[in-house]
């Protein structure tokens, strides 16, 4: 019996230690940078979802061999020119909300930005 209590005790300490050090995590923000980057690769946006504070400028970079057009779902809020390989596009998100976007010429490519 004492052995089990001892093991349980150790386990409790381990869990507590882990909880203290891990902190709270919501949807992953992109690194610790205040200028997050989204890479377009293999016909997908990576990361597919990011969470940023209002006022953040997000930058997309196209690493594919084909062009992509970063476009908000409503086709109004933002729309890049056709980005060739290594081209960039940036947009500053000023208002909180969830902003879905896609590639206007490969519309199966979808992603979103959550602004808090």
């Amino acid at each position, binding site marked *: 019996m004492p052995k089990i209590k001892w093991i349980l005790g150790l386990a409790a300490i381990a869990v507590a230690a882990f909880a203290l050090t891990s902190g709270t995590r919501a949807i992953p923000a992109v690194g610790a940078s205040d200028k997050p980057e989204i890479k377009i690769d293999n*016909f997908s946006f990576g990361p597919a979802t990011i969470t940023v504070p209002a006022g953040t400028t997000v930058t997309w970079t196209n690493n594919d061999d*084909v*062009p992509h057009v970063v476009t908000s779902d409503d086709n109004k809020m933002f729309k890049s020119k*056709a980005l060739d390989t290594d081209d960039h596009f940036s947009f500053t998100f000023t208002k909180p909300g969830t902003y879905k976007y*896609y590639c*206007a*010429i490969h*519309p*199966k490519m*979808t992603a979103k930005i959550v602004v808090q």
Partner: protein
Amino acid sequence: MADFIRDNSKNKDGVDRRGFLQCMAWAGTGVLYSLHGGILKSLPLAQGAMGGTDMAKMKGADFSFIQISDSHIGFNKEANPDVTATLQIAVDRINSAEAPPDFLLHTGDISQLSKPSEFDTAQEVLKGAKAGKIFYVPGEHDVLTDDGKQYLDRFGKDTKGKGWYSFDHKGAHFIGLVNVVDLKAGGLGSLGADQLKWLEDDVRNLKSSTPVIVFAHIPLWTVYPEWGWGTDDSQQALGHLKRFGSVSVLNGHIHQIMQKVEGNVSFHTALSTAFPQPAPGTASSPGPMKVPADKLRSVLGITQVNYVQGNHSLALVDSPLA
């Protein structure tokens, strides 16, 4: 609806339905397809030949035309550093045919980035084809700027809306459709209500015995939706063509040969003259597929289409560039 493929080849090279499906995966063997009343028959074609004994089987064609597709002028990455050169090879191949085609159909992605210089180069090269007129429909790469203004300025004369139109040629009715604009997030290709209404009106007074040939960039059947290879509202378009005895649909976009027969409608996609793309689901994305340099020309190609009046038959010959 079952797909009909009847093997009447003497060499028994496996072009029954299963063999045909395996064939499609290679993308590049020349195969002669002949359509008789909606039923697809196939005959093997000597590798790389365009002329000769197999063409003799198509003797008596009232006219022929060539489909080329996906020239992507401006693309310069590893999959093909010189797409202008391979387009030129395609033109040379067209010019080597026994008889010149009545016209060319380009099923889109003429350019890579809708740049004027890219369109200029494409038109310059295609001018060298001994082929009468060239008809175009845009691919998504051709309408990247100014709502497709660059494309429409050059190729939009006598077209409606975003560039759709029809014409008659020796008893057959050709319809060029545009399914690459106003694409919605998460969707496939799109024809849109205006174009569908135009199509309905366009064919209203045609006799059902008129052979109809539809050409558009993105496939008008669902080849592989995960990669966007399909058109959301194509069923409505095909509904307007249901009463016709012979409908052929010629598409590009996927850079490989695929075929399907459904009742009186036969669908065919063409090789690109620029670079191949992977077969559905065989890669993580539909991007340009690299092949060894000495193999490139064998996976690029053009399609010759022969029309024989009266039988409503269309014979399709996919011809690789090597």
